């Protein structure tokens, strides 16, 4: 899989919590400030799985990117409620 600048951007979102927080509150602003191409910015801002596939993003990278792009979805993929019920 070609690494690509958009893959690096997706990776940085999870490596850099401050960037992820900024992206959650202002995704268009964070993308605009990046060196990505206009087409890459458009598809990343769209953030749907078809858009990410059109971008050429690795299917498995689409998952963590999607969670960063959609924090409300990430809240549904949470282990927090189980923690007090472990043996």
């Amino acid at each position, binding site marked *: *899989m070609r690494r690509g600048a958009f893959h690096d951007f997706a*990776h940085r979102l999870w490596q850099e919590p401050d960037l992820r927080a900024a992206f959650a509150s202002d995704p268009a602003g964070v993308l605009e400030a990046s060196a990505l191409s206009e087409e890459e910015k458009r598809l990343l801002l769209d953030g749907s799985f078809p858009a990410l596939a059109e971008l050429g993003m*690795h*299917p498995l*990278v689409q*998952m963590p990117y999607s969670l960063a792009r959609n924090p409300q979805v990430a809240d*549904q*993929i949470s282990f927090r409620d189980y923690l007090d019920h472990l043996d």
Partner: protein
Amino acid sequence: MGSIVGAFGTAHILMKRGTGGDAGERVFAGMKEIGRRARALRPDLLVIVSSDHFYNYHADEAAGFAVSPAAIHVPFGDMQLPRDSFPGDSGFARGLAAHAGRQHVDVKLLDGYRPDHGVVIPALMADKTRSIPIVPLISNTGRTPPPAFAEAWRLGVALRDYVEQATPPDLRVVVIGTGGLSHWLGVEQMGRINPDFDAAVLDALTSGRPDDLTAWDEARIVSEGGNGGLEVMNWLVMAGAAGGSGGERVYYEAVPEWITGMGGVELFVNEGGMC
């Protein structure tokens, strides 16, 4: 010599509680049962085999398998998991990588690795106190091409060989292969589950027929189990370490809301000898 005293396969994800209905609760109960059984074996070390979900890896990561040699593992914190640390075992990890290399299975040392849900959830199920050292053994299911199931099996055999030949006397090791079963991620079929694929995996392993799975190529696995089904290679590492023994199914549920076929097995291991 040390010994493999337990071998388990289990799903490694749970979504928000309640969203999986009764099936989701049965999966949680099954995962806890796996954890209880692992804990009852009084392990000194948990080898947890998982894929990385691209929280650590870049998209072009070339290593097929890697092991974390960290003395302390600080979780990544995905899925709102706590970042409380787990002890590691640097010597075991480094020795395993070297031993596997001599057996012609490449295992990269993964410095700076931070465990994601694939390692942390099974680890918490087995030991919520985080007192038993863990060694994360990471497969690269996202590589093109992914490691072959047969290679995963050989890594498991090398792991057992290493434990029995090169680890301290009386070291008790439990191996947990995680992930799967059928699921499709980031592709058109996302949401599909294939219970037939899942049953084939569970039946092959619990009846001691791992050859049924090691013969599968990437095209068949992805077609029948999805790109997420490649995580079954983590179970094959575990099965190789168990020596090809049979076992029993602990739980299985196809959970549409969680877009995944989720199962767990225990493979019976004869301590100190090949099965």
